[in-house]
Structures are given as structure tokens and as C-alpha cells.
């Protein structure tokens, strides 16, 4: 009888401790995340590319984001596109984005989501709080701001590394 009680007591102790102090070894792995994407590059738009009536010529971008295995992400992106307005004036369009989620794609690119600020560079105040989707990879970058997709900027200089 005593042996049975001892065995039961031992089982209860083991279960209690396991419940009170659950194993947490997976937390560090979640922090490390699955991938990081880093880039600093430039490119030239193909003829005919335009956005909001601005004829786009070229652009540059800088990107740093870390994507965790849960799909959550942290980081920023900044892109500047140069172009010409309808009346022939040079115009610089700037997009600043906060990355809050993302995924790595099988083709080596990443899709990043977040919130952005768009400055059309025409003297009007920048517009904030716009939904942002970025697809960035070794061949270039495509940005969607507030539901409008800008032409893809092919990368002709610099690096975009997804690792």
C-alpha cells in the first residue's frame, strides 16, 4: 500500500513541476527568426513606367528587415524614385516603410508588409498610414503603396540578399 502511495506521490510531483515550469527552449529559436533581407541598390525603369502621372526614370532603395518563423517581421525600407512631371519638372518620389510582417518566397525573393509614408516630392504634404507591400529580390523591387502598385524597379547596381 505504501509503495503504491509513494508511486502516486512521485507521479503527482513530476506532473506538478512540469506544469508549473514548462519547457521554453523554443523561445530563443522564435526570436532568431527564419530569414533576414538586406539591400542597398539602384536601378533604371523601363521606358513608359509611370506613377501618378510622373514618368519614372530610375530609383534607389535601402532595406533591412528580419522575418521570424511566425511571419512577423521587423525592419524598414526606403525607396526614392526619380521622374519627370507632366510639365517637365524633375520630381523625386520617396517611400518610407515600416515592416511588420513578411514571408520568404521559393524564388529567393521576400514579400514584406507594413505601413508607409509617401512623399510625391511636388510640394504637397507627404501622406502617411498607407498600406505597404514590398516584393524584393535579387532582380529588383516592386512596391505597392495604398493599394497602387508602382512599376517594378529592375536592380542594375548594388545588392539584395535574402538569407
Amino acid at each position, binding site marked *: 500500500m505504501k509503495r503504491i502511495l509513494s508511486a502516486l506521490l512521485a507521479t503527482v510531483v513530476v506532473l506538478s513541476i512540469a506544469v508549473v515550469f514548462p519547457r521554453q527552449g523554443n*523561445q530563443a529559436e522564435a526570436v532568431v527568426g527564419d530569414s533576414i533581407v538586406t539591400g542597398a541598390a539602384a536601378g533604371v525603369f523601363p521606358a513608359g513606367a509611370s506613377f501618378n502621372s510622373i514618368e519614372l526614370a530610375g530609383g534607389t532603395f535601402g532595406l533591412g528587415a528580419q522575418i521570424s518563423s511566425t511571419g512577423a517581421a521587423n525592419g524598414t525600407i*526606403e525607396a526614392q524614385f526619380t521622374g519627370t512631371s507632366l510639365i517637365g519638372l524633375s520630381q523625386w518620389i520617396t517611400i518610407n516603410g515600416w515592416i511588420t510582417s513578411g514571408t520568404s518566397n521559393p524564388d529567393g525573393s521576400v514579400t514584406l508588409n507594413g505601413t508607409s*509614408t509617401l512623399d510625391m516630392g511636388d510640394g504637397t504634404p507627404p501622406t502617411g498610414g498607407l498600406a505597404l507591400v514590398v516584393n524584393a529580390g535579387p532582380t529588383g523591387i516592386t512596391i505597392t503603396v495604398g493599394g497602387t502598385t508602382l512599376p517594378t524597379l529592375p536592380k542594375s547596381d548594388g*545588392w539584395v540578399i535574402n538569407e
Partner: protein
Amino acid sequence: MRQHRLVKRITRSRALCSIAAVVVVAFGAALSSSDAQGRVDPLAQQQAGTQLSPDTLGIATGGGTVKVTAVPVDIVASFGINGKRPPGFVQNGTGTALGRINYDKHAQVAGRHVNVPVTFMQVELSTNPSPNGMGGKAQLIGDCTQAGTECPSQPPGIQSVLVYVEDNSDTGANDVFRISFCTDAPSASPATCGVAEGGAIRTGQIQIRASSSGGSPAVPTHASAPRLLP
């Protein structure tokens, strides 16, 4: 009678020993291997370092442009950075890190590309972080000696890249990016580095936070992009 008492005492002490053994085994089973080896769980420990430290846990990300002083005209350069602590990071003063530094000067000048993995990092978390839990300084060290990297070839003997960044606001205002090239082997504190390029960022943003869980619950929705001049 005396023998009976002795047997009882032995039985009781055996039972106590058994319970103690069970408790020890239960703790061992519940404890993670990382804890048992003294590793650091960045989520559980988010200390705010008051100065750049190779032991402080943190994450640095950033993207933007910076002006580089040059002759005859200044140059605009884009940058992208990532730095984080590796799995099983041990706070032993070496400051190991993972990540990457990309830097691209937008002009036809020598050594205009930098593409290096981050191997060491020092972090200082702000004691007065923003509502998004961010702010601070970081020093990322990239390794030019690894295969597939790209670093300036002049001056000769460059082995590492030192990037210093500051996160002073959630909008990117007053954030800082500086880059210099060092002839000593990568370490948390390179000593023989040249004059730094950059300074206050022109556009973009630096983000420094304690961990990846320090997300962006309130991303800036107000205008933040500065006016630009060609």
C-alpha cells in the same frame, strides 16, 4: 522492539531520498537545454544597456540614404543593415552577431559597393525608448575576408567594416548612419579604422530594439519623409 524502530527509520529516510530524487529528475526534465547551459533567452531578459556593449541583447535594422562628402560634388549612398544575436548567444564579451551590411554609393567612384556579413555587434538600448519600444545605438562589424563579400580595395588591407548607427526617433529624424573601413581583423571593437562616411541620415530610418517581439504596435502614420533635393 529496537530493531523494529531502526527498520522504520531506514524506511522513512529511503522514502525522503526517493522524493528528493524525483524532484531533481522533474526539474531536469522541465528545464530547457538552453537554460541548463546558461544560455540567454532574449525574450525573458530585456535589459537596457547604458553604453555600447558586446553583451547587450538587441536587434538593429535600417534602410535609407546618407550623404557622403566627396569632391567635386557630394554623393548619395543607400544603405541596408541587419544585426541580431545568434542562437545560443553567450554573454562573454565577444559580441558575436549575425546580419548583413549593404552600402551602395550612387556614383561612378571606386569602392562604391559594400556587401558583407555581420559577425560582431555592440548594442546600447535607450533608457527612454519610444512608444514602440525602440531607440538606442549599435555598432555592426562586417567581415571582408569571407568569400563572396565586397569591400573597397583602397586603401589596401581592409579586413572589416564598421557601421555605427543611432535610432533617435520613430520617424527617422536625427537617426545616424556612419561607415568606416578597418585594416584589423573583425572583432567587436576594431581599432584601426579610417575616417567615417555619412552622418545624419538623409532619408529612411534606423530601428534598434531589444528583441523581435518588440514589434511595431503603433507605426507612424504621420508624414515623415523629408523634402528632398537632387
